[in-house]
């Protein structure tokens, strides 16, 4: 299972990357896409929406099921990846290259509360894949 060491993770299988401009990109992990199977639909939040931490803010639907995506930290949505609307399979093909939305965190330090790669690996191993 691919878990890049430079990203942060959530218990709900989002990955989070701190960008140089202080925003964070959010996507779903390799483990999440593998569990869900072929993606067929992505619904992102609207730009400008203010999100609370752990708020349901996006939906990914695979051939199997619909799955909510949660805000890893509180913040404002500053961009969404429109490409996924017409090509949801990008989430399967390149989960860490396919960000879904970008947030400007209310508190940049909130990222420190997220899982690092080792903790995320331990989590999915404990879930028994």
């Amino acid at each position, binding site marked *: 299972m691919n878990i890049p060491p430079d990203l942060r993770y959530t218990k709900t299988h989002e990955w989070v990357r701190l960008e140089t401009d202080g925003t964070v990109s959010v996507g779903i992990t390799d483990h999440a896409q593998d569990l869900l199977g072929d993606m067929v*639909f992505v619904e992102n939040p609207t730009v400008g929406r203010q999100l609370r931490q752990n708020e349901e803010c996006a939906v990914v639907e695979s*051939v199997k*099921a619909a799955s909510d995506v949660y805000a890893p930290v509180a913040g404002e949505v500053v961009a969404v990846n429109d490409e996924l609307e017409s090509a949801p399979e990008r989430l399967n093909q390149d989960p860490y290259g396919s960000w879904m939305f970008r947030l400007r965190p209310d508190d940049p330090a909130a990222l420190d509360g997220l899982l690092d790669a080792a903790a995320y690996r331990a989590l999915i191993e404990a879930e028994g894949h």
Partner: protein
Amino acid sequence: MQHTPLNAQHRALKARLVDFAGWEMPLNYGSQIEEHHAVRRAAGMFDVSHMLIVDLRGEAVRPFLRRLLANDVAKLQTTGRALYGCMLHEGGGVIDDLIVYFLHEDWFRLVVNAGCAERDLAWIETQRDALAPGVQIRPRRDLAMIAVQGPQAGPKLWQAMPGTQALTQPLKPFAAVTVGDMFIARTGYTGEDGFEVMLPARAAPYFWQALLEAGVQPCGLGARDTLRLEAGLNLMGQDMDERVTPYESGLAWTVDLTDPARDFIGREALLRLPRSRQLTGLILLDRGVLRTKQKVHTAHGEGEVTSGGFSPTLAASIALARLPAQVAAGDEVEVEVRQQRLKARVVKPPFVRHGQPLVQVHTLPST
């Protein structure tokens, strides 16, 4: 968990395995959508050994089946002919849908769903004891079944098993033939040409391997479900069950009332009950995915999605839904999808047949 004779093959191919009606079955071998396209464009194969083959033998088997099934086996007059239909209870509800094959005047073969197999057997035995004690019922767990489906199914089957070509190439749809210790039928559950091959369990891994070497794509239950949904074929337990009749399940064509003297189980109820609901197709106009059990709002009352999903061939979401009988093809309805109401159009299934879309897709622009 029960295993089919092909379980080791599925593991070797790194299938994602799931529990289906107590059987460990492949969901997919990687990408469900690629498996789906392989069947529409070339050829795919499915392990369907979890389905139960039941042989019924005895002099009274034809009259017994004319009472047991809502379709009339009187139509089966030549060896190998097959018929699709429902087994009903006295109230007209569907116990199971099945295919019945005519082998000899004293030998018919049923293929029933895995999830209903034990209950079906108990029902058939009870009816046999009451109506035709001389009929022998033999479940054939010694047989495996592999479905080879797609426009290239024939050539691939004949490449894998050259000895089968002479007898199977001339087969019409819903006809079958015995080839050595195999029984090969031109039937399937995908809306494509293809064959379902019943063969001794010990021979199944060799046949599977030969098909694999011929380039046939292994396909799991995931692709089987999207293929049958596009083809407008019902899934027992989802699109119908004991609480609904064939008339409310898009299966009026399988209820044979031609012979007024044929008193099949459920007939009286079918003639008496109102037909207030129908099973029909939906195509989603808004962006999203239709799913089983979503509520449908129509101008004539509420209904429910019985099978919903994403159609890889149409690149749109489609569904089967049970709606008030007054709803007509072309009507627009609203489906409750995660606290929203999305627009869908009523269409007559099938959605796809022999690789070709049969419905128009005009997705609304996203808002």
